[in-house]
């Protein structure tokens, strides 16, 4: 009997803290079992620069700058199923707490009037991506298929969603697995 083809999975973090990726690692020993069923495309796991055709894309973090937009679009274009993981991807999370302030106010505060700062000015090198005026949840920028809430979601919640998807089921989280904090 032929070995079923592995599902191809890509992951990335936009404006996030990487806590969701850490929570993926928190599946601990199950990681080794998972690697039997899936293979990673673009991800911190691999050296693939651009996302190729994938079955599943997992995105952590909200959209806070131009670069995030490009990466998010690349994932949407290549992933059959796109999953938003964690508070930042789902509602902007903590970074979105800047949304009631103007970008200029924040940049001034941090680079010009900040405590202990000497001769400040605002970084303007073309190598740096520009900030959007607001941090947006990713579903406000592209279509998202599934959401795994939590800050971060527990490893068990992530495991449940991944195994449901691997089994061809619609992911469902019950009490104890669904969480916003």
């Amino acid at each position, binding site marked *: 009997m032929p070995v079923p083809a592995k599902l191809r999975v890509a992951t990335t973090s936009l404006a996030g*803290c*990487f806590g969701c990726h850490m929570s993926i690692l928190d599946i601990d020993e199950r*990681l080794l079992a998972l690697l039997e069923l899936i293979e990673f495309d673009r991800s911190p796991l691999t050296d693939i620069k651009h996302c190729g055709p994938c079955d599943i894309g997992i995105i952590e973090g909200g959209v806070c700058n131009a670069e995030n937009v490009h990466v998010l679009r690349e994932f949407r274009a290549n992933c059959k199923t796109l999953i938003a993981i964690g508070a930042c991807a789902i509602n902007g999370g903590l970074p979105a707490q800047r949304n009631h302030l103007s970008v200029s106010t924040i940049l001034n505060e*941090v680079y010009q009037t*900040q405590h202990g700062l000497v001769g400040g000015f605002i970084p303007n090198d073309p190598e*740096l991506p520009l900030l959007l005026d607001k941090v947006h949840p990713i579903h406000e920028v592209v279509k998202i298929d599934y959401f795994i809430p939590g800050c971060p979601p527990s490893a068990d919640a992530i495991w449940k969603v991944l195994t449901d998807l691997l089994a061809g089921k619609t992911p469902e989280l019950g009490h104890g697995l669904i969480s916003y904090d």
Partner: protein
Amino acid sequence: MSNSLETAQHPETLRRIAIDPISRVEGHGKVTILLDENNHIHQVRLHIAEFRGFEKFIQGRPYWEVPVMVQRLCGICPVSHHLAASKALDAIVGAKQLTPTADKIRRLMHHGQMLQSHALHFFHLCSPDLLFGFDSEVSQRNIVGIAAKYPETARRGILLRKYGQEVIRHTAGKRIHGTSSVPGGVNKSLSLAERDELLKDSEEMVAWSRDAVQLVKELHFKNSELYNSFGAFSANIMSLTAADGSMDLYDGQLRGRDAAGHIMFDGVKDQDYTTLIAEQVKNWSYMKFPYLKTLGPEQGWYRVGPLSRVQNCDFIATPLAEIERREFIAYSGKSLLHAPLAYHWTRMIEMLHAAETIRDLLHDNDIMGSDLTVRGERGFEGVGIIEAPRGTLIHHYRVDENDLISMCNLIVSTTHNNQAMNEAVRRVAQQYLHGHEITEGLLNHIEVAIRAFDPCLSCATHALGKMPLEVEVLDASGEQMSYLARAGDGASINC
């Protein structure tokens, strides 16, 4: 001592090579290199390209929210931020001396985090470079490759990290972004069941940590020429040390040494950090550049983290780690060892210290006490400094009479190392890229140097294996001449 390659004279005449993205966490970083037609390097920069502005939007929030809020800066070492903020805010509630239970629960949490973070960094992220070689087969150079070639090493790495995360879960309430440390103490201690659960594996963790030190030591000895010279540059160092001069990762006073190892300052209290450090902005990075005021921005930058801590303290209070520290000091000789790759060795020594400390704390019944918080005279300003896995972390807050944050200043570990990491990549560029045809393998050398620091920007990218890498070579007019990308199979594609 700062390097000449920061800014080229005539950038418009040079080719640009970008390593992008190297990573994110504390933001997304990339390296850009400018070189001439002879592949002579003229400029190398490590840019930190993400910006969040926590310092601003945290203003106007109630202070008790801060320890839970700011840890969202980093999902790899949230405990560091959780505790640094709590320590700063202890001053606001007038908690001069925490209860023994609170102090030990926080220390237990912190060492759990040291263990998991150091294990993650070495086993999941760096071991592929060190065990397979910097320019070995790309497809093999990740945790999957390690699991295949060295299954026991991979298994132990995963279980060491798991144990650290479990220590955090029991002390903080959650593995990532817990809530138990509050201004003035903690909101929970350990139950007997929780204690016993952790206790049963504690000795094995010490043993495995000890083996890990041996493994790195052998790698260093086996290739000492490379390990001692790769990206090496001399620098000032800084870290906390306990009053008795011993290594203290949770609390203490600031001590700094110059490149030769002479103490420049010592016993500086946390709230006096501003007398030592100022920050500079450069237009090409969202990350600031801190330096020692007395020496100025050119000479005053410094290095933090395990390599600094192990050489900065007088001794380590746990016996097995102390033996290893002595061997390291003996190896490095009279002056300091400045080699970035020596970070790995010292990091494993710290992991061993963390494992010993956890075991010892688990035998201390105070961690099951019920006296959790203290309050005293209300304060309005607080500074909390802690040694995070990747270096000194400073949180500084002012709180108004209505209990809202009115000022916040954060200097995270990676920021302290900003200039140092730039120096390292410039040195590697000179040592390995200068005058050569640029290949994927050569560019990986730059990442290896960055990774050695375990910057928070590498916490992220690093998270398992190597970061994606792109090289684009542009001519003076900015036209793309050739394109080279590291694909999943590791083959170099030229198009």
